């Protein structure tokens, strides 16, 4: 880990956002992860995304479980709310936080161990419940914190550092999320911020459950020849399917792309999601096609990246439950405890 503190001084010409803050105001403490860890790039992408959107840092709830990935919320948005939960139980905490205060932007960061092994049940159910949050999995296919055992997302045949191949089929979290109701599903690569930052922005602003599976190489235990989650392998086998740009409401929309490859999706808050496709026939609003494409590419040893599926009008958990628009933590006693008469009314309905 690094002992040198990051100097507070910044580039004198660093852009200032609408809140008068620079990117540096969205950082956290210096990472204690291994030098070169992909997760640090994901944190940097979150910092850049939030700064560019001019979102107030204190309006964030960041939650995580256990593992290298789950340490990362310390490394971004140091002025926000945070909870580092029990292994695999981040979804429960995120659900509670979101129910209590629906006005916070909720970012969950988890890993392949945290979400695909110990927490796979929790993962499945938070997807089903459509919690309005951005759920990022820093996916490196290995248990880095316990020195490099295969994780549940490690591809069959991919080898360990000592050359031993993995014997089991991988769990594909993207396919799972598509299957059980996520309304925003993307995959990206930690080494490709030009794709990742806009995806994080779109995911944050998406209403409903937004899932991004980020292939994030483990430099210490899974960045060798034979690994399918190394920097070199991912760079050599990536197929960028759909790029997404988030365009805030009122911002000028310019057209600089071949029509047919370009698709604008209106978001409920008035903003626009601009999708740039590589394949004209691919429809990122067709869930079944998305699933098929992901499976086909996986079979061919390719990693499809980009915004694979989006349903901008999907209902989130609050819509499903019909909760009031005011956050729970802002409701006063008279609303939360309407008195004996109201209780009578409820009881009467049940008689």
């Amino acid at each position, binding site marked *: *880990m*690094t*002992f*040198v*503190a*990051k*100097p*507070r*001084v*910044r*580039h*004198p*010409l*660093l852009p200032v956002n609408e809140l008068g803050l620079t990117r*540096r105001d969205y950082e956290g403490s*210096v*990472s204690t992860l*291994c*030098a*070169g*860890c*992909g997760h*640090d*790039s994901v*944190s*940097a992408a979150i910092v850049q995304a939030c700064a560019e959107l001019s979102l107030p840092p204190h309006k964030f709830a960041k939650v995580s479980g256990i593992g290298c990935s789950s340490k990362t919320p310390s490394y971004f948005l140091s002025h926000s709310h945070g909870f580092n939960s029990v292994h695999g139980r981040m979804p429960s905490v995120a659900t509670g936080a979101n129910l209590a205060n629906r006005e916070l932007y909720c970012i969950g960061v988890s890993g392949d161990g945290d979400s695909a092994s110990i927490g796979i049940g929790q993962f499945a159910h938070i997807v089903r419940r459509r919690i309005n949050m951005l759920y990022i999995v820093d996916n490196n296919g290995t248990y880095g914190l316990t020195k490099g055992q295969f994780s549940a997302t490690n591809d069959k045949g991919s080898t360990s550092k000592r050359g031993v191949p993995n014997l089991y089929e991988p769990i594909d979290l993207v396919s799972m999320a598509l299957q059980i109701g996520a309304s925003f599903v993307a995959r990206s690569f*930690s*080494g490709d*911020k030009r794709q990742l930052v806009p995806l994080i922005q779109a995911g944050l602003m998406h209403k409903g459950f937004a899932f991004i599976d980020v292939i994030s*190489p483990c*430099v210490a235990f899974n*960045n060798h020849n034979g690994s399918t989650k190394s*920097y*070199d392998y991912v*760079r050599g086998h990536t197929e960028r399917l759909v790029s997404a740009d988030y365009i805030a409401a009122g911002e000028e929309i310019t057209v600089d792309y071949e029509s047919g490859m370009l698709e604008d999706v209106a978001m409920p808050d008035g903003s626009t999601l601009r999708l740039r496709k590589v394949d004209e026939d691919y429809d990122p609003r067709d869930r079944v096609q998305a699933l098929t494409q992901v499976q086909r590419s996986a079979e061919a040893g390719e990693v499809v990246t980009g915004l694979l599926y989006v349903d901008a009008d999907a209902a989130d958990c609050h819509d499903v439950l019909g909760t009031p628009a005011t956050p729970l933590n802002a409701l006063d006693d008279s609303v939360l405890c309407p008195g004996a008469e109201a209780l009578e009314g409820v009881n009467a309905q049940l008689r």
Partner: protein
Amino acid sequence: MKATDIADPNYFHKVVDCQWACPAHTPVPDYIRLIAEERFTEAYMLNWDSNVFPGILGRTCDRPCEPACRRVRTEEKPVAICRLKRVAADHKGDISDYLPRVPKKKNGKRICLMGAGPASLAVARDLLPFGYEIDMFDRDPAGGGMMRSQIPAFRLPADVLEEEVDLILNMGVNAQFGYEITSMKEMLDMDYDAYFVGTGAPRGRDLDLPGRQEVDDHISIGIDWLSSVAFGHTSSISGKVIVMGGGNTAMDCCRTSKRLGAERVTVVVRSAFDVMKASEWEKEDAMSEGIPIINNRPPKEFLHDNGKLTGIVFECVRPIPDGRGRYRYEPSGEPDVVMECDHVLMAIGQENHCPWVERTVGIEFDKWDCPILDEDTLQSSHPKVFFGGDSALGPENIIWASAHAHKAAISIHLMCQGKDILRDRPPEGVNLISQKMGVHQWSYDAEHDDSKRFLVPHANKRKALDNIKIEVELGFDARLGLKEAQRCLNCDVQTVFTESLCIECDACVDICPMDCITFTNNAEEGELRTLLTAPAQNDEQDIYVSEELPTGRVMAKDEDVCLHCGLCAERCPTNAWDMQKSVIHTPQLGSYASG
């Protein structure tokens, strides 16, 4: 852009802004680190090696290094480089073991040095260890030249001056003081193997205005007056004094007058305040001593009452910026002003002036009466005669004299050894030495210190104004010196990039506090500068570009505001980044020394 050639000594030298800006190329960060380690003697010797007069320069240098300091660009105020030099001088121990040995047996070559100022002294220092016999001639009764005659004691105490001047004289110079040179031909007839002219710029400019001749008794030329004060011929000045001029000599004149009993002292300058030649701190010190500086007032006429000066008439002008940092002046429309005065000190510039060099001896002069010299060798059109310091290129600072002296000494040595004085000069060079000591250990203090520039303590003002010998600036003590030293960014510890090791993981990009590093597609410099993470608008600072990486991109680093904090190297998993100290070899005669 083409990949940067870091083997070019100038590339990393330029990154060390202070060293690059210093005419003598003093290795500033290196000596500042030594001060931080309380190794004052070594810090002093590092300075002595390159600029010859650390104690003197630590008080009087014009500090070209400070405006160049990177800290001006990253934060606000530069490291107090000059005052740290003084810390080294003030706290040094015995230096005798570090001094070069001068052979008893001479090499048979005799060199004549004209003038005993900084340029000649530095040439003597460079040549003596090689066995040259050095004869030095000066009209003043003691050595030091303008350092002694023009810099008042409240800025440069006599003991500091004498220590560094005597150090060189005692290395074996045959000095003849009180020797007024009147003829170059006579000197050439003495048949030395080489001549070095370091006679400075001893003629102060005068101003031919109406009334000038009539009031001659009440007007002194600034440098001559300072010199007569320095040698004790003048010890008082009375009445109202006007100092004309805006350079450091003017500041010395006004502050000296104040100390010698003037009733009122005023500085009047023809031009605007911010383009005055005087150093910022000299102006501040004068003003803090209660001396008004009045700008935009060109003089018109001296008023007198039967030969007794009564005042000066000044015109009022207004500066109009010309858009290139300069001004032109036009009448402001205000009526002319008359300022009463009893005495005028004229400090409006000086000239190098060699009336004693006959124009028939083979030394050619240009239309400004400056000797025509080869820029690299400082050789005049007479092959045996070299010039340096103010007498070479006009009035400059002491630090230039040291720089010229090193050049001239190399030329003289090569000539005496029968070599080509241009082709056989020692080359510039650079060594790169990794500073990595362990996994997270660097042999320099990488951590950034965001302290503001520390103020230097001053002597009690009333006491200082009473006595010309009381030094005004007290200098940093060791504790403050250490604190100020910590502000240095160690710009000589370079970020060195090795393409073949890079896995393009972006760790360096993410950690860099100044957003210096970008991985991008290559382009021509103009375009590349726009592709970087943070704007690279300072064209004077280079972009460090790597060879093409496996993804087809290049690493491009804007050197402009890099803090040299080492975080890129710290966070690099493959050591593609390393922090390496660049040791710049500036040619000096010592480069030839063996053993």
